[in-house]
């Protein structure tokens, strides 16, 4: 049996060490990970993948830990991937999300892994997807992917999830800040955490207003149907229900893929308040995706995105390494010296690779 095949067998048998090693190989972009993932692929596609993002200090890790506890109460196994930034100056990373998740450490139904964002552009979302898939194949019913919502890379990552939670907290400054990053559009569930603090209602209301404006604009533009929401049952029939503390949301069953309005929920994650409602919302969204058929479209978009990214990475590697690194360096030198333009260098690299393939074939 090959190393990869042995690892596949061990992951399938529920060996935590094998799963941990597989994720290490994924992070290292080790060819053994590619082989193992190919073996595990047929076993994936079962888990509900939940992305969690928000500004630093909003309480992402604490919320994820609380959500994991609630998921466990509902009899589900949980995988958690927490991503923290790699320092661009030293290449090192301090991964501290575990501090808030140690309550689950003795529970074999929870597997948590810290990942550093490392350097490679586009590489992070690929390795995150692979790590999620490893947890999925391992048998996790729910996989949380937690990351700071600070830039395009993070948004790309959470976009690979089925359901996305965007966390806000009161008192972090101008609410408009949050919407500049474009994370409003990716949320399926909004959480205003630290809701016992002053300003929580204001933050929730600001989200609601922005959401209403966004929806109107989307409808006018005729953008992607999956995100255009009709008024929810809560709004139609239970107006004002959201104004109180931690009210119950109403999720009307729907077969219309267009009909999901992201609820705005308040939590105090550190005290486990409002957490049941967030898991209810996740369950409702997951049900909505499957019953409306939106899951098929989302899954296809996700797969296409991944194939495209992998294609880019793989071709880049083959073209750069295939012609020899000296040749690559010489072309970069030529561009620097203005003897060649960047696109000319790319054409030369691709041309050399194609010629090499023809010779070999």
């Amino acid at each position, binding site marked *: 049996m090959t190393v990869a095949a042995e690892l596949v067998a061990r992951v399938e048998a529920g060996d935590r060490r094998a799963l941990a*090693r597989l994720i290490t190989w994924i992070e*290292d972009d080790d060819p053994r990970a590619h082989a193992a993932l190919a073996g595990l692929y047929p076993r994936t596609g079962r888990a509900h993948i939940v992305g969690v993002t928000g500004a630093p200090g909003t309480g992402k890790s604490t919320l994820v830990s609380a959500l994991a506890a609630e998921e466990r109460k509902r009899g589900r196994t949980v995988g958690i991937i927490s991503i923290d930034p790699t*320092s661009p100056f030293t290449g090192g990373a301090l991964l501290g999300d575990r501090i808030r998740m140690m309550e689950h450490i003795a529970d074999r139904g929870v597997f948590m892994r810290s990942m*550093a964002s490392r350097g490679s552009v586009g590489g992070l979302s690929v390795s995150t997807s692979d790590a999620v898939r490893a947890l999925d194949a391992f048998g996790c019913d729910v996989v949380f992917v937690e990351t700071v919502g600070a830039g395009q890379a993070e948004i790309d990552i959470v976009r690979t999830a089925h359901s996305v939670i965007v966390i806000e907290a009161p008192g972090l400054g101008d609410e408009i800040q949050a919407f500049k990053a474009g994370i409003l559009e990716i949320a399926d569930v909004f959480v205003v955490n630290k809701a016992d603090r002053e300003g929580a209602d204001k933050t929730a209301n600001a989200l609601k207003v922005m959401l209403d404006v966004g929806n109107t604009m989307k409808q006018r533009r005729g953008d992607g149907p999956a995100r255009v929401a009709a008024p929810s049952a809560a709004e139609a029939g239970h107006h004002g229900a959201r104004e109180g503390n931690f009210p119950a949301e109403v999720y009307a069953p729907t077969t219309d893929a267009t009909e999901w309005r992201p609820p705005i929920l308040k939590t105090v994650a550190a005290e486990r308040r409002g957490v049941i409602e967030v898991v209810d919302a996740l369950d409702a969204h997951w049900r909505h995706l499957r019953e409306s058929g939106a899951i098929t479209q989302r899954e296809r978009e996700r797969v296409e995105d991944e194939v495209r990214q992998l294609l880019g990475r793989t071709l880049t590697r083959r073209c750069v390494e295939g012609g020899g690194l000296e040749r690559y360096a010489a072309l970069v030198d030529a561009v620097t010296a203005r003897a060649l333009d960047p696109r000319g260098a790319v054409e030369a690299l691709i041309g050399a690779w194609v010629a090499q393939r023809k010779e070999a074939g």
Partner: protein
Amino acid sequence: MTETKKIRVLIAKPGLDGHDRGAKVVARALRDAGMEVIYTGLRQTPEMIVEAALQEDVDCIGLSILSNAHGALFPRIVELLTGEGRNDILLFAGGIFPDEDVPEIKRLGFRGVFGPGSDTRDIAAFIRTEIAARGPVRG
């Protein structure tokens, strides 16, 4: 292309110590030395530390103790790691240890013991040297 294989280190505080300044300084220094450092926080049991090391698949564990409980906690951690088949993980200790205990700590398998006044650069260099001596990592 940049080097992708990173040294992953778990910094943990077993036992009931109430402060972790030293552990945080070391964690920060190792990050600045280009390593990926997972910090668990205070008051961890040996079981918690070993499980975290397992899930994070670390190359190295640094344990910080100030309370003189190493005599009970270190052997337990080594025993649990051995039970999980992970006694390949590099171990080092930091904190306050009586001189006469250091040989016993080393005998347990701790390759480095760093007391007060240690230079964090020495700790980083120690980890690099030890990991390099172990040959290709993550086989």
